[in-house]
């Protein structure tokens, strides 16, 4: 399931839904991303997440489909917020449930890595020096690339 929304979400309830009524789920793996109050050595008062709505859902659906294709999963979930967020606020939740622990954990890791490089979101940080667009990190490309290398037959 995919949700792109301005509102916060309830992590406990969302994770519960990934296994509710499905007694073949043995594990639920999740990652929650939060706004930090620092970026490098600069304090962050808030950040605004801009996105490309028509593309966001398409991109996230593709990432989710890829995870479901690669691992034996019972369910997946991606929730991503947009708009103005403050330090401590939740930005994103990705989760995967499976009969098998390794599948749930790896798929969850894959979801967040690919989301970081494929989903059209951009962050504008409010710093003491004014608004500052967050630069894409090389580390994120590298993290996403790992999943390509793991399955060389399916280069993206």
């Amino acid at each position: 399931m995919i949700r792109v929304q301005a509102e916060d979400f309830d992590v406990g309830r969302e994770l519960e839904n990934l296994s509710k009524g499905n007694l073949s789920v043995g594990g639920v793996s999740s990652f929650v991303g939060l706004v930090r109050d620092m970026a490098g050595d600069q304090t962050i008062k808030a950040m605004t997440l801009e996105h490309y709505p028509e593309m966001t859902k398409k991109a996230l659906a593709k990432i989710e489909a890829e995870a479901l294709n690669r691992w034996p999963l019972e369910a997946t979930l991606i929730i991503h917020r947009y708009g103005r967020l403050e330090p401590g606020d939740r930005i994103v939740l990705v989760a995967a449930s499976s009969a098998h622990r390794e599948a749930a954990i790896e798929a969850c890791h894959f979801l967040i890595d690919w989301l970081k490089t494929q989903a059209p979101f951009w962050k504008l940080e409010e710093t003491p020096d004014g608004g500052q667009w967050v630069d894409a990190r090389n580390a994120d490309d590298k993290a996403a690339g790992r999943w390509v290398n793991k399955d060389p037959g399916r280069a993206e």
Partner: protein
Amino acid sequence: MRILYFAWLREKAGVSEETITPPDTVATVADLIEWQRQRGDGYGEAFADTAVVKVAVNQEHVGLDHPISNADEVAFFPPVTGG
């Protein structure tokens, strides 16, 4: 052709969305960028370094050599930073 700009490309171009009809010689994304750049001002600035410009055609990531037509939705944006 519907064109969208996001993040600092939007700020530099000074527009978030526009509908244009480029000449027939504009056949690929690279052609479109070159043509836009010549419109000057903010466009020149937005497309000053195409190495940091990402493109989607009809909401799919594409390369600079991707063909385009007037029915397409073309989006320009910096590398994504969500999550």
